[in-house]
């Protein structure tokens, strides 16, 4: 009986698993394989001809004498991506934690509505959201207009197509991912613990730093990783709000399949990005899954 049941379940689960396996897992392995192939002369790859050029060219380039010299261009793009993602995570936390806390202290019916409001932008088109920021940030745009109207002669805000614009856009795009897990951990928080802290003479600052924040730490960690990781792979925001001038990793990868026509390099960079993401996920789950149940 058990075997029959199990085989029935196998057939239920199979279509989805086989589909994702075939159209996602296999392509990912193939991408890793392409990254160690030789680049084709006219784009594409020479199937079967192996080369580590993609990984070498990540750090070195050949000069006119055919010597390898260090080339920091790509490393800079990685550093910028990490910097922008870290900055975005901090901004999202500064805005997201108070908001999650605010929502968790509201009456139940209003909470659900506020959480719904937080999630809506996530479901809207990412191009449209970033385009809306172009309308706000550009010279002569809404924010510029308001500042001028208030008498601050900006002489053109000059913020669109800068890393600041990219950072504002990234924060905007990934904010909901910060609020939701923090809210989830605050919602479970036993308010009597906070009241006990007050009764024992803690002021608000201490109650926050010694009771609420530590209890919300798993939510903060989850939120930070949910913001940081997609940020690292952001494509649309740097493309539109950075004007293509401030590439992040994803744009560099994308360009290898467009104008640069270097598929092995693109595949190698993609593989590195995927590895970074999976490693951070593993560190996260290793660190937080081992905590006792109550503190999660």
């Amino acid at each position: 009986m058990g075997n029959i049941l199990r085989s029935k379940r196998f057939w239920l689960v199979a279509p989805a698993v086989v589909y994702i396996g075939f159209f996602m897992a296999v392509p990912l392995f193939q991408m890793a394989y392409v990254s160690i192939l030789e680049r084709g002369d006219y784009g594409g790859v020479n199937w079967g001809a192996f080369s580590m050029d993609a990984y070498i060219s990540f750090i070195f380039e050949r000069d006119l004498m055919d010597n390898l010299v260090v080339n920091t261009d790509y490393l800079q793009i990685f550093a910028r991506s990490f910097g922008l993602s870290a900055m975005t995570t901090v901004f999202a936390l500064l805005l997201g934690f108070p908001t999650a806390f605010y929502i968790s202290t509201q009456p139940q019916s209003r909470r659900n509505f506020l959480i719904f409001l937080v999630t809506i932008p996530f479901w809207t088109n990412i191009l449209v959201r970033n385009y809306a920021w172009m309308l706000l940030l550009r010279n002569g745009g809404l924010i510029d207009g308001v500042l001028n109207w208030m008498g601050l002669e900006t002489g053109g805000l000059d913020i669109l197509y800068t890393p600041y614009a990219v950072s504002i856009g990234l924060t905007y795009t990934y904010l909901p991912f910060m609020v939701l897990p923090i809210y989830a951990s605050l919602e479970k928080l036993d308010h009597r613990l906070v009241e006990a802290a007050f009764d024992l003479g803690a002021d608000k600052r201490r109650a926050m730093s010694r009771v609420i924040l530590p209890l919300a730490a798993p939510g903060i960690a989850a939120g930070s990783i949910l913001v940081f990781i997609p940020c690292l792979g952001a494509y649309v925001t740097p493309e539109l709000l950075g004007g293509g001038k401030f590439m992040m990793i994803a744009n560099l990868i994308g360009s290898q399949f467009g104008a640069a026509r270097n598929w092995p390099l693109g595949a190698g960079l993609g593989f590195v990005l995927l590895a970074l993401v999976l490693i951070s996920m593993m560190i996260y789950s290793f660190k937080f899954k081992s905590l006792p149940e109550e503190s999660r």
Partner: protein
Amino acid sequence: MKVDASNPLWRFRGITSTAMFFFAYLYLPIVVLIALSFNENRLATIWTGFTMDWYVTALSNDDMLRAAQNSIVVAISATVLATIAATLAAMGMSRGRFKGEAGVSAMLVLPLLVPEIVTAIATLLFFVALGIKLGLLTVILAHTVFCIPFAYLPIRARLEGMDPALVEAANDLYANDWKAFRRVTLPLLWPGILSGAMLSFIISLDDFVISYFVGGAGSTTLPIYIFGMIRIGITPEVNAVSAMMLIVSIVFVSISFMIDRIRY
């Protein structure tokens, strides 16, 4: 946390104002975009009067309509495929534990973990290696992958809350599996299925990065078309098209959430 919000002890300085700022930040761009799409002025940001002209211009643009049609074809195909696969998978996963369950779960949410750009180029390379011509078909195949988890999660959640005794009772009353599914499981599960289907539809409709890399000539979807328009410049037509996309997404998600809250 159940707190008495009127108790001043629960008022921390800066919390309410930050939350207000948060919601303003979240909705300002959306409100501004929709407002400007009705602005008569060609130079987009100065308000000179109300007009629907840009919507008329946008809706009479053949290229845009073709792109919209492609988007809808892709979204419907991917949604149907993903929802069927996800419903079956959710049912398979709901009956107790089994060996390899963790691996199967991980596989079902894998598309949510992999960065979009990586999925996009890996899928592109895969289709090129297989010699499949890039077009609507490749876009549909690729969309189905990331639609599966979006359909799966609400269906799974719904099943989780369902009493397994109901199906057992049906079986005891001599219903075969198909009958038990059709007469017991499905009527209870449909809000989950519908909500999952609507979420995958909207996720597919809104996707840009994967369609951009996996598509070819003739498979321009609406987001790709909008991207092309934005590249050329900020125009009132872009505002109108964008506002329409926003509204479609918001309406769909709202309906999906309402369906999801229907009680058993």
